[in-house]
């Protein structure tokens, strides 16, 4: 379905975005008597969610009678409210955010884990690298102050003297590292290092997940009510996701190309998206998923998550995770 | 209801008084009858409350005591029938309307049909020929006042209230207007009340002059002007005219002197 092609012509033709942006949803709704579900993404459209685009593009969902809208996120678009209020059936969150929301009284469960390894890295330049957590001592790190608990957890896990690290509050950009304001950055493996690489700057990344920071990211969450009442739809939705991400893994370049084709207005750069798609693979697929399927987790990985969450000041129990939907997906 | 709708209405002020919210007493209880079909001039020193009297008659101020009747009816009723027109000291033309537009607005507000020829005639009469489509901002102060007079006349009101209508008009034009305009309201027998501080103007235009004291206003003199109609500029050299002017002046000076003595005595 060429949703964006339609809207682009309309925008250029009449410039009435008020109608136009509403139109694709309209056209889908009137197309089939399928069941409507929305998946709330955690950020703007990009290859970060390319598995979902493949599922949409290849009809993995429509074959299963599901009409899925992918709702983009953004800097002012928390995932939890639409999921709580039911305007999205499933949201893409992370274990720490979900734990926080549950503490505030939301009845969420984690249904599947797209990123087995947390994408947080310490990025530095080759001339002054951070290869292991111990290298952080004496360094200036650029990060949002809000992420201080993350760095504290990493220090505790690796016996690093937290007070020996100088935190420089920065916006989320590689610029402070390049201008020499800081020695390293706390960021995602898949964004700022990729941006630097595209600008021709080599960087060193130390994946925190390789140093004990176990925290499920890009997790699929739904409310207990949905799990009880809309089971079939949840299973169909996650099955499509699993199929989409398996297809993604086979050809990340094609996934990046599809992303650009489906969202030409997102201002994406093909090379950036290709590189990001490639770097995402080792975070999402492991021996565990090879053995059990996309999104899987075990009691051991949950236990490690609970330990990390405790360092972040979150008390959670294993029943935050509910694998029953995923088991149905991979059984069928 | 009024006995005869075609008769120009009398204006009756009965025990009329006005004290403003701030405590300023503008008009002290005052009773006077303005005869229908006649032109009465009200003169008095600056700030004596003569404009307030006019506004009370027009129904634009609520009296603190007493009442105003126009042909036996309250001012609001006359307003509603569009039978009253005021030419304000400030011309109060709407700046986004042309001279013609401002004059036509009065017809519209008084719920009268718009007769283009009549409007045209009035524009000529007040000496604004060629300026009908001009906006007020481009007119001189005197021209604006003449437009405001034309606006007041266009509805052919039964009661015409003029508040210093010639204040900003130059001497020559003033003489011309003083000669031309009264013919309009005299011909229709309009009851006209003219407020002015020019004694000459009062005598020249009116059948009767009422002299008010300094504030709060009370009537200190009330005299008839026995000059033939229509009035001509050269009448101002007639002895009768000069006598009337002298009498008005005398009344004015006496009231002012009394007032300053009263102040001195306090």
């Amino acid at each position: 379905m060429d949703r964006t092609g339609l809207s682009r012509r309309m925008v250029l033709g009449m410039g009435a975005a008020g109608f136009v942006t509403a139109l694709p949803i309209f056209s889908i709704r009137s197309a089939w008597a399928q069941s409507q579900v929305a998946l709330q993404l955690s950020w703007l459209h990009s290859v970060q969610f390319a598995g979902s685009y493949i599922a949409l593009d290849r009809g993995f969902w429509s074959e299963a009678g599901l009409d899925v809208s992918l709702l983009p996120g953004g800097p002012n678009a928390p995932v939890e409210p639409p999921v709580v209020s039911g305007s999205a059936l499933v949201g893409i969150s992370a274990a720490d955010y979900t734990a926080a929301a549950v503490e505030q009284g939301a009845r969420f469960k984690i249904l599947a884990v797209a990123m087995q390894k947390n994408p947080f890295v310490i990025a530095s330049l080759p001339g002054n690298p951070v290869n292991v957590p111990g290298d952080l001592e004496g360094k200036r790190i650029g990060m949002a102050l809000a992420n201080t608990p993350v760095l504290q957890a990493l220090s505790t896990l690796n016996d690093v003297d937290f007070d020996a690290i100088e935190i420089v509050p920065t916006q989320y950009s590689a610029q402070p590292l390049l201008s020499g304001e800081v020695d390293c950055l706390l960021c995602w493996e898949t964004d700022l290092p990729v941006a630097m690489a595209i600008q021709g700057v080599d960087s060193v990344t130390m994946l925190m997940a390789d140093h004990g920071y176990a925290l499920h990211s890009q997790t699929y969450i739904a409310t207990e009510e949905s799990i009880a009442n809309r089971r079939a739809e949840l299973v169909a939705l996650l099955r499509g996701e699993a199929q989409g991400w398996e297809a993604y893994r086979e050809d990340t370049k094609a996934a990046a190309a599809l992303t650009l084709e489906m969202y030409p207005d997102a201002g994406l750069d093909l090379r950036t998206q290709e590189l990001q798609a490639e770097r995402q693979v080792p975070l999402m697929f492991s021996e565990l998923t090879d053995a059990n399927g996309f999104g899987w987790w075990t009691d051991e990985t949950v236990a490690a998550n609970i330990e990390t969450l405790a360092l972040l000041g979150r008390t959670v129990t294993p029943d935050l995770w509910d694998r029953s939907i995923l088991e149905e997906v991979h059984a069928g | 209801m009024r006995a005869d709708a075609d008769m120009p209405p009398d204006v009756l002020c009965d025990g009329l008084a006005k004290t403003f919210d701030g405590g300023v007493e503008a008009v002290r209880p005052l009773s006077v009858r303005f005869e229908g079909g006649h032109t009465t001039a009200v003169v008095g020193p600056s700030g004596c409350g003569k404009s307030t009297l006019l506004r009370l008659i027009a129904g634009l101020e609520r009296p603190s005591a007493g009442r105003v009747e126009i042909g036996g009816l309250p001012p609001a009723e006359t307003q509603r029938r569009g039978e009253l027109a005021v030419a304000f000291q400030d011309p109060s033309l709407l700046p986004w309307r042309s001279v013609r537009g401002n004059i036509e607005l009065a017809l519209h507000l008084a719920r009268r049909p718009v007769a283009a020829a009549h409007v045209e005639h009035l524009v000529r009469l007040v000496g604004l020929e060629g300026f009908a489509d001009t906006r007020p901002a481009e007119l001189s102060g005197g021209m604006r006042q003449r437009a405001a007079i034309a606006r007041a006349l266009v509805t052919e009101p039964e009661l015409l209230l003029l508040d210093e209508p010639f204040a900003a008009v130059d001497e020559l034009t003033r003489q011309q207007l003083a000669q031309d305009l009264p013919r309009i309201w005299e011909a229709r027998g309009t009851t006209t009340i003219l407020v002015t501080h020019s004694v000459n103007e009062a005598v020249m235009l009116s059948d009767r002059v009422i002299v008010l004291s300094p504030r709060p206003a009370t009537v200190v003199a009330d005299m008839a002007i026995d000059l033939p109609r229509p009035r001509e500029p050269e009448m101002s050299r007639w002895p009768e005219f000069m006598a009337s002017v002298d009498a008005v002046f005398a009344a004015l000076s006496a009231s002012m002197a009394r007032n300053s003595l009263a102040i001195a005595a306090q």
Partner: protein
Amino acid sequence: MTVATLAFIDKRSLRPGRGSALLGAVLLVLGWEVLARMLADAFVLAAPSEVLTAIVENRTLLMRALAVTLANGAAGFALGNLAAIALAGIALAFPRSQSIITGLALTVFCLPLVATGPILRVLFGPGPWPQIVLAALAVYYTTLVLLLVGLRATPSSWIDLMRSYGRGSFSTLVHVRAMASLPYLFAGLQIAAPAAFLGAMVGEFTGAERGMGVLTIRAMRDLDVDMTWALATVATAVAIAAYLAIGWVARRVLVADPPVILSPPRPPGWRGGGWHAPINVAVVAVAAVIAWWAALALSGLNPFFAKGPDDVFHALFLADNAGRTRAMLASAMWETAAFLLPGYLAGLLAGAGLAIVVVLFPMLAGAAMPAAIALRSVPIVTTAPLVVLILGRGAIGTIALVALMVFFPTFVACLHGLRQAPGQVLDVMDSYAAGPFQRLLRARLPAMLPAFFAAARMAVPASVLAVTVVEWLATGNGVGSLMALSASLSDYNMLWSAVVLVAALSALGYGGVGLVEARVLRIYAPEQLA
């Protein structure tokens, strides 16, 4: 492009000083180019040539994004201004309601975007409505206050004229007030146009598929400096074009020139000062709480994120961790105040100061005005990251940005005020051979005060918006960041408490400046208080 834009402004709106304006624009662009080349390795500044290249290379993408954001901004512009007209109508019909209407309108206007965005997204779901509503929210207040002034800007003799023909308030509205308010309405629309565009951009942060806001986030993340500046340039050009277009329409429609009003007068509730003010504040506060409670009850939003007055009260005073919540809020507010107050004061002083300099040296006006019009139209979401890039994340960057937001409206308002000094007074000064300094001190400065204070009042919400946006998008400090963080951690009690505090303090700040103003104007410009 930039040169062409500035030249266009000069030609259309500034008849005198055309040559110096053009020269100023050329020098500005040249300086920009040189500076950018010097800083090429720092990834902060793109040269005009690079910006131009980025615009040309991405022209179709930019056109599509612009069409979307512009359409949403236009819809919000229409909606917000219609709402303002409706509210002004109600206030006119029921004069007693006016202080409550303006007070509530101000409170809603002061609600931080960080908090309103996600709620609008949940209310309206996917599609353009959150963008449109945020654009509407960004414009309705300025239009409302200007319109209220305009509807009352009628000499009493016009009203007398209507009454002398037995016509009541409806005829007066149709024939007099509506027409008399048009210049004020147009002045309001002119201010609203860039604001609506900004609102639509911020609305896209709540999860939109396309638009200028989406591209801005993307370019920042991708370290695409050329594109970031290209987006800022296009957004600025559009905002200026909208400003000028409305000015052009106004000159076609209006008989007289629209008044240069950059900041509206105080809500009438503040006018009396004395004992009126606290009562009005209390009435508005009660009305706000009732409206808040009613809105939640009617919208049926999930209580997980839609907190009511009782929830906030509980979180702040009754809950186990109430002390901690209060302490966090206090420290965040304190941190914000440390940026806000110096920036606000610096902006006011610099604005008034430059206006004075321009009056003393009139040839500078041609060069200063285009820059002032241009920079007051720049959407803050594009400037905030840029200013922080250039000036750093320390206090200086944030303070400078707040000062910038305050500076331009103050400058233009003060300049207008300074030039309003009554001609006769200046003639009297001339007859005593008073020098320019004497004239300034004794005639012009007193004439400037009303405009200065009006600008100072309107600058309160603007500077709060600026500081919270910078904290949220760029520096990660203070209450702006606290609100964003609370939203991401689902701590909606904290978020709503912060929202209440920010809105209430902004509204009180607005009123507080109004009280100072009433005292000063009583001496220097009593006619303004009549």
